[in-house]
């Protein structure tokens, strides 16, 4: 089934709110650093190793810095162990989110670490790095990690350099899983970003008979996975106007799936709070199934 942008409600108000948020974020950044940032945070290190080790030297925005610092400690250096698989989170430029970090870092790193625990148990032959691993798109080292994960892309605002690197990454063989964004105006933001990133490739709905739903677990139904707050208290599963979950994708000209978009659902929270006795296990179960299938698919197609 082909995705038709006309069916998605667009909201001028949403853009106005977005513009206001951008403005507010920019002012906050100016106040914090005393310097005018370029469009969004420029996470510019020359390779993956330096991106992590030399992050205090890089011109990271203070929000991102704080998140990095909080999770600076990893028991194992990701580049010393050299694993086959890294669950790499894209540290994209975007608008400040809820006042404390870049939107890319929502649920980071607990969701990532917890997903790896489950993933390694389920895919016991996968030689995976146990911890979180975040990289900006402009990092040339990104090309060594052909699997990318992103959340809250409703707040994503890629810089031209990031866009160019990410486009190249995807066309060269990278695989990008997008998760945890809701409603029509967040969709509109992603759609705008993707239309700049991969203008010639349409976004299509992935049918349930696509191999991505069957390469490890047989997923028969697309569930809406609520965030931890709503999940715990049995509230509605949706957020904003995102009532129906979708799994959409972008294929290259050879039919290779480059981008998987999980819209109106929050797999990340389900991984992150899988151990929470109040969070419904059926959502965690489903989220792990989807996550494992994404990894298996990415590592085989």
């Amino acid at each position: 089934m082909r995705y038709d942008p006309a069916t998605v409600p667009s909201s001028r108000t949403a853009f106005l709110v977005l513009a206001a948020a951008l403005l507010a974020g920019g002012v906050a950044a100016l106040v914090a650093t005393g310097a005018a940032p370029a469009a969004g945070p420029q996470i510019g290190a020359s390779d993956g190793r330096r991106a992590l080790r030399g992050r205090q030297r890089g011109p990271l925005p203070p929000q991102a810095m704080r998140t990095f610092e909080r999770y600076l400690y990893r028991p194992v250096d990701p580049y010393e162990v050299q694993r086959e698989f890294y669950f790499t989170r894209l540290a994209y430029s975007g608008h400040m989110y809820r006042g404390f970090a870049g939107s890319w870092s929502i649920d980071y790193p607990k969701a990532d670490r917890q997903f790896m625990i489950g993933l390694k148990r389920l895919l016991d032959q996968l030689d995976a790095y146990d911890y979180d691993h975040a990289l900006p798109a402009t990092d040339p080292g990104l090309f060594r990690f052909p699997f990318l994960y992103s959340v809250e892309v409703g707040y994503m605002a890629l810089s031209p350099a990031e866009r160019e690197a990410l486009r190249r990454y995807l066309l060269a063989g990278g695989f990008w899983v997008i998760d945890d964004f809701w409603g029509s105006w967040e969709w509109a933001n992603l759609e705008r970003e993707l239309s700049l990133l991969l203008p010639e490739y349409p976004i299509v709905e992935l049918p349930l008979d696509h191999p991505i739903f069957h390469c490890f677990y047989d997923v028969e139904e697309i569930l809406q996975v609520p965030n931890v707050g709503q999940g715990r208290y049995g509230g509605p599963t949706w957020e904003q106007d995102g009532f129906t979950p979708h799994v959409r994708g972008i294929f290259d000209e050879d039919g290779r799936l480059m981008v998987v978009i999980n819209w109106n659902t929050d797999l990340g929270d389900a991984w992150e709070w899988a151990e929470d006795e109040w969070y419904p296990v059926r959502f965690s179960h489903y989220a792990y199934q989807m996550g494992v299938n994404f990894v298996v698919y990415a590592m085989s197609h």
Partner: protein
Amino acid sequence: MAGLFEFLFKYRPALFEEGRFTLVSPVWMQVAALLAGALLVVAAFSYRRMGSGVADRTAGAERLRWLPPVFRSLAIAVIVFCLLQPALVLSTVVPQETFVGVVVDDSRSMAMPDEPSAEDGTRAGAVLEALSGEAGSMLDRLAERFQVRLLAFGRSAERIESTEQLRFARADSRIGEALVAARDELGGLPLSGLVLLSDGADSAPAELGDALLTLKAAGTPVYTVGVGRPRLRKDIEVSRVVAPRRVLEGSTVEVEVTLSQAGFGGRTVDLEVEDDGRIVNVEQVTFPRGGSAVTARVMFAANDEGAREFRFQVAGQPGEELLMNNERSALVEVLKRREKIFFFEGEPRDESKFLRRAVSQDENLHVVSMTRQAANKFYGMNFDEDTRRFEGFPTRREELFEYSGVILGSMEASFFTHDQMRMLVDFAAQRGGGVLLLGGRRAFSEGGFAGTPLAELSPVVLYDRPADQGRPELMTDLRLELTPQGRSHPATLLRDDREDANELWPTLPPLSAYQRATELKAGATALLQAESPMVSDPMIVLAHHRIGRGRAIAFTPHDSWHWQMSADIPLEDQTHERLWRQMLRWLVSYVPDRIEIEADRDRFEPGSTVTLRATVRDEAFQEVNRAQVVAAIEQPSGEEVEVPLDWSVERDGEFVGTFTAGEPGLYRIEVDARSEGELLGVATSRFAVEELNEELFGAARRDSVLKRIASETGGRQVQLGQAERLVEDLSVSSEGTLVREARDLWDMPILFLVLVALLGGEWAVRRRLGMA
């Protein structure tokens, strides 16, 4: 030497060989001569005793005193020998009662201008002049004693009335067949022998020996007269082309072309490869200064499906004597079919993903993969209606042997049962398949393969690595470099131009590997290597060797996918795709099919006998002898001929039949093998029928051939212009209508010389002794 013998002994050694020695004088005279001789000897010795009055009585002189009587006695003996009338009895032919067949090479190679004795300088001219030129020509001489029959030959010999009928334009010269045909033509006549005038260029596909044996059995000596120079002065020849009979569409074809030369040592020439009039490659070849031949390895892409005739040619060089041998062709069938490859991977990893992706657009490669995701959970991909489904690694030979190649990824040895390991070795050794061993943390020694049956597959020596050593260490920053063998191997040709390809390798992003492979097995060849500070010797990156009928290739890095996904590699770059396409095509090239059919060569002359050879095997690649095998041959006209093939008995599963190719053009063979009514399989092949001009290759006079014909049939090699000698040789032949003839030997110059020497010697000694 022969000339000196003839001067001294009056006749040639050949006559002494043929003849019988006798004394012609009557018996009484012989007795009388002997008695007289004895008396004379006695007299001579008494004369010695009378020598007491010699002047010189020194010890030396005393020792010489016995010599004069000895010399005198020997001189007398020589005279007595002459008186006894020694003679050589020869059986010679009765004039005009026996026949001689003069068989003249009427082929194109006789037009070569390398016979300076002729007026026009050609071999043909020399033959014509020798046969029927001025008075005293060979035919005239022969006609004095024999009934001469003139025959001309190309593929076969035919009678001609005069030398004017010789055209020297036939495309073929099959000496053996021609001689037997000539013998048959003159069958029933008293035949003294055959005279063969030729340059010795023999284009017959069959061994000459059979024909020579027939002639020898029939007692027909062949006298050979060679024309042309034994070595051309200035010539370049494409003497041999070794090309695969079948390749996959889009593959790089590797062809060995041997160029011979005379007079062009040190010269660099362009060897062009032409596909249907289109030049697909030009290779520069430099002839060695010292040697005469050089073998060039030419590579080009075979992109068009069907039977393609590739032409390999060198442009004529100034002063070259023969231009028609500057090209040769090879028929290569470019197949559009999907070779099935089974990729067995022990863990999810990017290397296998990108490898499959690199070849996914290749219509000729069908990679079926089975990846272990979790313990005992496999993910199979690309199975279709043509491939059997199974989970894990096959347990039956039929399941595995259906593939042409197997790629073994990072899977530890302990996963496999002993039978599965043996089956995989048999896949290469018996089925003839290709096995590619990929590097990875569970591959090779690091996967515990040392000491297992699978170790046999590895081209690199494996070492024993205890399982408790934990995770193997990764060697990083490996910059790949070509070995000398790798510099000319088709698998390493990542650019169309060889030099560009060789320069590319060191510039590619560095890779890493878990394999500490530094030692090659005997018989294995390394194509790529890399230096690492972690090992003292260069690390082997790409190596291969043969295992029985098949081959095994080792590629030790585990992250060649960085050549696809690197910030330094442009998006449109095809290096990674090309590497794996070539590697997998190489893996499955020359892998035998269950049913195969092949003509004994790819190209034949019209009228040749084509031997068809089929091999029939069952699903497990066991040879089948009890099968009904029929080859249907589609001729260029579209007409179809069926040739039943019979089990050859010499080899299991081999079926043979013959067919005579008539019209020129492309023939298609389709063989159908059945066992007890059930179809085992079908195979096809092609061959071409055309004028091959084989005799223009190696066009210099082939003395070895001419000598062999003469010596094996009891004839002799004769020089052009020695007609008299030829007549004499033929006259004393043991064939034909014969008469005995005694030839005097008393007047041999040697006897006179001996006599003079003996008498002179006696006189000299006597002088020395003061008796003269």
